[in-house]
Every structure is written in C-alpha cells, then in structure tokens.
C-alpha cells in the first residue's frame, strides 16, 4: 500500500506521528496473530509489546521487500518462534510448572480483552499441528502470500499450500464437532 510506504518514509525520518499511526493501524492485527499462534494472551501481549519497542528503537533497520503488514507479521512470528523455543527449553529443564503457574495468573489489567469468539477460534487453532496453524494464521491474518510463508518456513510453496489445505480441513472438522456438542 502506498500509504504504508509514506508511513515508513516518515517514520524513518523521525516522525513520531507515523510511528503512532503504524502502531494503531497494526497492533490489533499483530496481537490477534500472536494470540492465535501461542494461544496464550499474556505471552502474545508481551511479544507484541516487546516487538513495538524494538521496532521503534531501530527505524534505520527497516528494509521492506514486500508489504509493511507482512513484514510486521514476519517479525512477530519470529519472536513467537523464539518464545516457543525458550518455552520448550524450560519444559525440558522442568521449569514449566512454575512458569505456567505464573502465566496462568490473571494480571490486574490485560491488554487483550478476551472474547468468547476469539477464545473458541484460538482453542480450535491450537489443536492443529504448529506448522499448519502458522500457515493458516500468516495467510489469513498476516495477509502473507504462500510464497513468503514458504520462504519463512524453508519449504516449497506446494508444501505450504498442502499445509494450508489440510489445516483448514482439520479446523473445519474441529469446529463442526464443537457445534454438534
């Protein structure tokens, strides 16, 4: 989008207004994306929060090949992956119980206001294999093209399309069985 090019141009030249516009324009989308990938609103909030602070600190590093939306989505996905790796390491080290006890505690105030629809959808998405979930979320919520997702996941575009198809089939069956219940 041309508006995004203008925003980036202004942001790289020190415009706080442009930064605020980028934040307001994309924060909901990134929160939704991180939440869907992690199925953990607290962790998603931390990731998006941390990402925006880091984004604001280094505008000169911003170099886009595609759209701003998919660039931001890719950054958040990378952070989610790092968070998942850390989580897995902690689980391996047997730290998960204490950690999850902390993250399950409701903080006094949360950024994301939970909605029933969001929770149901995220619960259903959480039942998909990670790679399928990632493809579906990046394509539908991150507006990323299959080609870009293939590069991110390091697989062929056909594999990505298959993951997308299988993921949707599975999701459909999960949501249908919930309806029957």
């Amino acid at each position, binding site marked *: 989008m041309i508006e995004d*090019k203008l925003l980036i141009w*202004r942001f790289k030249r020190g415009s706080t207004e442009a930064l605020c516009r980028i934040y307001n324009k994309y924060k*909901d989308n990134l929160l939704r994306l991180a939440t869907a990938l992690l199925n953990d609103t607290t962790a998603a909030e931390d990731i998006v929060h941390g990402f925006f*602070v880091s984004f*604001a600190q280094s505008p000169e590093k911003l170099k886009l090949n595609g759209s701003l939306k998919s660039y931001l989505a890719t950054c958040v996905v990378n952070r989610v992956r790092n968070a998942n790796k850390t989580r897995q390491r902690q689980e391996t080290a047997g730290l998960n119980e204490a950690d999850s006890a902390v993250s399950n505690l409701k903080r006094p105030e949360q950024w994301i*206001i939970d909605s029933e629809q969001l929770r149901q959808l995220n619960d259903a998405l959480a039942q998909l294999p990670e790679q399928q979930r990632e493809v579906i979320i990046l394509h539908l919520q991150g507006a990323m093209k299959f080609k870009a997702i293939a590069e991110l996941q390091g697989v062929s575009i056909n594999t990505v399309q298959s993951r997308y198809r299988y993921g949707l089939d599975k999701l459909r069956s999960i949501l249908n069985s919930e309806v029957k219940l």
Partner: protein
Amino acid sequence: MRPAENIENLIKNTNIDTNAKIDEEVLVEVVEAFEKSKAKKTSATEQNLGRIIMKSKITKLAAAAVIIIAVMVGINYIGGLPDGTSVAFGKVIANLRSARTVSFTITIEEEGQEPQTMYCWMLEPNHQRIEMQDGRVVIVDTFQGKSISWDPVQKKAYLIATAIAPKYTLNYYDQVKKDLLGNFPDGSEENIGESEINGQRVVGFRLRHHDCEIIVWASVANSMPVMIESAGVLSRKQDKNQKEQTTSISITDMVIGEELDESLFSLSPPGGYSVEETSEPVIKAQQQVIQLLSARIMLKLARACYKYSKEHDGLWPENLQEAIEYGIEDDTLLNLTDPESELGCVYIRPQKTNPRLVLLYQAYEVWPEGGINVSFVDCHTIIINDEATFKEHLDFTLGQQNGY
C-alpha cells in the same frame, strides 16, 4: 459442513478488543523508545544535503521544477469532494486555485537516493523561484520564455532561453490551478482526521490515484493547505527486469496568498555575477514538462473514448471525432510538441476491452529520446522510454485485434 470460505472468513474477521488504557501505556513506552533512539543519533550521521545535491542526478535546478509540477499535476488527477468534515476538501483546493502566490518547502526522495530539499515561490501567472540548500537559485518567467540560474559559489549566472513551446503550455502553475476543480474522476478521498502541524490544527485528506497517494493537510481555521505529502511511482518499469521506483515528496511550510515582491522573480542576477547565455540545461526539463502535459491530454482523450464505449454497449468510437462530446475540449486536441500540426497521437479502436491493449500512442517518425506517451484501454497513461517495449505492447494489441 461449513464451506472452506466460511472458515477462512471466520479467521480473517475475528476481531480483537484491546484495553484502551494499556494501549495508551504501551504506545507511550514505544514513543519514548523512539525518542531516545532519535536522541542518540549524532550530527555526524546527518546527511550533508548540500553535498548530496551536488552529486545527485536530479540536482539540475530545471529538473527540480519538473518534479514540483509533477506533484502539482498529480493533485489534478485526483477526484471528488469528501463528506463529513468541517473543512471541505473543495474549499482547500479552491483556496489553492484562487491563490495568486504560493510558497513552500519541498523534499524529494527517490528510492536509492538521498533526500533533497528546495524552497519554492510561485507568483501567478508565470513566475517561479526555486532555491537549493547550497544557495543555488533558479527563476523562471514563462511569459518571457526565459529563466536564470545562478551559483553563489562560482558567482556565475546562466540566462536560459526557454521558448521551445507555446507560452501557455509552459504556464504550468496557472494550468494546474485551472484544472484543480475540473474533470475529477471518481475519487477515493478519505478524511483522515485532525492533527497538529507546528502548533496549527489541521485536517488531513488522503487521495489516491493509481500508484500515487497524496495526503493534503489543511488548516482547520481557514481551510488553507499547510502540507502535502505524496508517495508514488513516478517512473514506471519499462520491462519485467526493471524495478519500479517510488518517489516520496513532501511539501511543507505552505503559505498561500502572501504578498511576494516581484523583485524575487527578477531575471537579473545579483551584482558581481558573470552572465552566460545558454539553452542547454533546461531544454530536456521542458521537454519533460511538455511530455507530462501531453500525457494529461491523452488521459482526457482516453477517458472520453472510454465514456463513449460505456454509453454504446461496449463499442468504441470509430475515431476521436466521434468521442468529442464525451469530454474532449479544444485544447485537448492540441499537439503540444508541434502546435502547427495535426493531433499528435494515434488511436487504435479496441475490438475488445482488455486493459493491456494500447488505445492511444504519441505519433513519431523517429523514436524520441524521452520516449512516448501511451494510453491503454483502461485509460492508464504512461511514458514508455524504449521503442522495443512499446513495440511489444503494440504487437500484442494488433495481435489481439486480429484475433490471435
């Protein structure tokens, strides 16, 4: 079973609600991080604009004028009047249109090049003064068909004859203003709300036209334009291997209707300068202006033909004369590159509505150095620089017309 699209739409359209208070807190922290990072930058990292301007390809002052006109003409391509605002965009444009003078700062950045800043003054109907950051100045008087530029370092001035086309075709500021409220196509204006620029309350209008987007910020108090920002593809790719380049232009510190002393536009250099008469530097730039104006004329012709086809069940006019009642004015038929000769473009009557088909192209005997304007069936009009690319488009069009 739900169709796949339903699942896709469900995922796409699931909204997230956020706590406004936390939202604000996060944003404050993000902005603080940004401000801190800005403060860290030393003056050593700031760009030496003067040096950059000297090195850049587009530092020729005359070329700078072309870019300014491109922006102003760009505004002309954008349509309609938005609703629901206390500041009407029409009033903003009307103020610009009725202004006898306008001054502004313009910053231009092309991808891969460093930004450049110039200061401009325009006095109706045909005076223009541009100052570069390194002190060089150009003054254009289109009625006299002359311009002068001088370099304060070398104490040298160049007096340039600019009369290479009918005077009024180069009276671009007046022409731009004349067109500002006329012939608007369907627009996509959007009121983007209020903001503050240098302590002044302003309202923004976002305008789009093909690959170009312009945001006009106008004073809430008096509807005067204050700032214009634009980003768009000014030079299209000519083939698949060439990358389209986005040019970002920001016009700030706009002052409209201010009394400007005519001495600002004097064609005499300051005392102590040697003067050399020449015509070389601006001819190319003026040809570009003419090409731009010529493209606009072709756009009007293309739109008239398109309108004709809409009202004739998809049948396109036999010739341009048939479309004359559909928005072709007298001056639309002028051949800018050669006013004494006939219409300077060739019309190919489309047999089908395929946006890739050539509709009009600038006639030529020898391929011009700056390329030719070409309009397509969907009315988009571009400059094609190399003949081989044009021939590809033409061959494709003729092939389609002949049914293969």
